[in-house]
């Protein structure tokens, strides 16, 4: 039931790690797409951007277990039936408020995370047959590496489509449902009905030290993987 805006109360939803993760990812995704299309010497930046995305996504995958309430899988993954009902509800006049990711968006989050991780890992093993190979391409055959390169291109296109859908959904919420999710992802706060706002206020908060520890672990893991050939030269 769409309620007048005066009945809505601002409440904290997205923890700082989720927000910094999201907007860093946006910037890096744009950089990756552009440098990938441009090629030439921009490929050096493409690789750095990919490493950074891999570290961020690894962090976010871990954060899904132990982050703030609404960063957790337990909070944003619901049954397909529930997602379907929610999607049907979206098409109607009513508006069901959700504190965190909605049941459809939650699945999109998981799909994007897994696909981004796959994409970044594929890049590590790719060979563009010009002058660039991912740092781990030497451990597989050229044939396999070239095949993974074509998968890397394919998933790149798929990601562009999914990001397009993601943005379209956010714009739908903004213009049709009058809910500004973009601002919420910056401020971390959402305008919610009183009951949900209370729930958000009382929800489990993120642990800053744990976030930094996990982020460090993710960065270290990627740094080790990327430098594996140099570290473990026989």
């Amino acid at each position: 039931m769409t309620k007048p805006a005066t009945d809505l109360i601002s409440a904290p939803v997205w923890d700082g790690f989720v927000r910094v993760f999201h907007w860093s990812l946006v910037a890096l995704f744009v950089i990756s797409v552009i440098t990938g299309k441009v090629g030439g010497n921009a490929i050096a930046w493409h690789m750095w951007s990919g490493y950074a995305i891999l570290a961020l996504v690894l962090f976010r995958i871990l954060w899904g277990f132990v982050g703030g309430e609404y960063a957790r899988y337990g909070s944003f993954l619901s049954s397909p039936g529930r997602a379907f009902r929610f999607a049907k509800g979206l098409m109607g006049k009513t508006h069901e408020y959700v504190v965190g990711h909605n049941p459809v968006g939650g699945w999109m989050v998981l799909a994007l995370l897994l696909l981004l991780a796959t994409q970044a890992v594929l890049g590590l093993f790719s060979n563009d047959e010009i002058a660039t190979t991912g740092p781990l391409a030497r451990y597989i055959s050229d044939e396999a590496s070239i095949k993974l390169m074509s998968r890397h291109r394919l998933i790149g296109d798929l990601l562009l489509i999914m990001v397009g859908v993601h943005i379209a959904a956010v714009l739908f919420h903004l213009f049709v449902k009058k809910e500004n999710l973009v601002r919420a992802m910056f401020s971390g706060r959402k305008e919610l009905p009183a009951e949900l706002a209370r729930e958000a206020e009382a929800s489990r908060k993120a642990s800053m030290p744990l976030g930094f520890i996990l982020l460090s672990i993710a960065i270290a893991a990627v740094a080790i993987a990327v430098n594996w050939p140099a570290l473990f030269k026989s």
Partner: protein
Amino acid sequence: MKTLTKIAIAAGAVALATTAMAQPKPENFVKQRQSAFALIGWYFGPLGAVAKGEKPFNKDDAVRATSYLVPLSKMPWEGFVAGTENVGNTKAKPEIWSKAADFKKAADNMQTEMAKLAQLASAGDEAGFKKQFGAVGGTCKACHDDFRKQ
């Protein structure tokens, strides 16, 4: 007279056989162009580590590599004869033949940029060489994007 006729026929047969032998099979053309590209990759790839700053610029190495690359850059194109679209493991797209002028342009671009790379190597211009490496790589990519199955 009879002997002469025999000699003439024999000479004709040899000439025919020679022509037939000089005419490579489609798979030979594919091999020709793939071999040229393989060598281009062999000499061009390591320069990428220099362009990325992973290896120091060495003028002698750069001159040597580009002195091979300039002639190599002219070679693969004669391998793209009609009738070799689907031969062996080729990744050639039909557009190579249906948009022959565009393909020629893409091939010319690569040769032009490669020649510039060689000049910069000879001049010992490290910064220019690194930048130009990207320009050559860009011509490779542009052609791959349009004319090569991914």
